[in-house]
């Protein structure tokens, strides 16, 4: 199960970072490449997460392929881990990177607070539903082994 969780968390984190780049930077142009108020710690954090996210998207999928090869994939738990990893990164991005490190805002409009609230609310929903799925899978797999015994 631990491998399922890591694979899902990595892929989820990478997926959210990829959607952030593709949708909010490239398609909508809401996010800016650079914001004058960025702290230098923000640049470092952004650089690290950006580099890590490519690795974790691809690496997460290879781990998934490996799980299937070993017949160890627990799809429900894996999806839960994707939501957990994605939600955690989105919350980190929304609270720490956007607000404290000021790497950029979600959109350059008045009342950006509304965008922030929706952004972080979605992140929390993702984390909670991810955790729920993981706990359910853990329980059912424990039930299955108990039953087998």
């Amino acid at each position, binding site marked *: 199960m631990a491998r399922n969780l890591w694979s899902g968390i990595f892929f989820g984190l990478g997926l959210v970072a990829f959607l952030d780049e593709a949708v909010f930077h490239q398609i909508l142009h809401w996010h800016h*490449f*650079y914001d004058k108020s960025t702290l230098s710690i923000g*640049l*470092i954090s*952004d*650089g*690290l997460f*950006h*580099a*890590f996210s*490519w*690795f974790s998207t*691809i*690496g997460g999928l*290879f781990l998934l*392929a*490996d799980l299937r*090869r*070993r017949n160890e994939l627990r799809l429900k738990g894996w999806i839960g881990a994707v939501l957990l990893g994605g939600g955690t990164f989105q919350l980190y991005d929304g609270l720490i990177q956007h607000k404290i490190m000021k790497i950029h805002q979600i959109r350059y409009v008045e009342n950006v607070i509304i965008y922030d609230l929706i952004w972080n609310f979605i992140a929390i929903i993702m984390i909670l539903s991810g955790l729920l799925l993981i706990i359910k899978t853990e329980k059912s797999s424990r039930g299955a082994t108990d039953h087998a015994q």
Partner: protein
Amino acid sequence: MHNEHIVQKFNFDLLLAAPFILLLLAYIFAVFRSNKHYKHWPLYRIITWKIGVICIMAVVLGPLAERIHTDFVAHMMGHLLLGMIAPLLIVLSAPMTLLLRCIPVNQGRQITKILKRLPIQLLTNPIIASLLNMGGLWLLYSTELFSLMHQNLVLYIFIHIHVFIAGYLFTASIIYIDPTPHRKSYLYRAVIFILASASHGILAKHIYVHPPSSVLASEAENGAMLMYYGGDAVDIIIILIFCFQWYKASKRKSWLPKKAVNI
């Protein structure tokens, strides 16, 4: 007068192109020799070698090379070709394996002996290779070195050779194609790769905000974005190859009886 100039330019370009054409021919010659005694050399390796050498040529002569001195975006394109794309393609063409196949066995043993010595071991260590690669770039773009380089031809040539060699060592220290005596674990290489790649992205944003002196802000912004996203594109290919190698290697491991598995 004008024609004379063109002829001179043509001759000079030919002179610059000569070593690269020799490299292209030497590889083909080596492939023919290797095919006589060994398994057929894969076609894709010949292609990656050719495109790799042509990428270096594009930085040395031709239309892009002429714009590199005046246009920062062209400079960054040249940097991507010389420091990332060409090294990756040349690593993929496995030149050391080909060389070892073409020379007598005792000479080959001597070469592998040299490869096992400490200096080479250090240079192909992912941490040292990353420091050479990224450290060189930080020095170049965040100090006066960038404008000094454009005033001094020797410095210019030295830096460009360094960019290629450091890029090659870095790529070869992450993905193993040629024989690599001192191998590092996948996790170790992954961590170093992520840190190096992060520092590349941070440097790109640093250039966006603080352009090297003598570079216009608008050119610096476009050049920095090319560096950021171009670096990503090459990184994705390296990550895919790296993960694929892990995937194949871990399959072989899972065939072994459980007790022998060493994680």
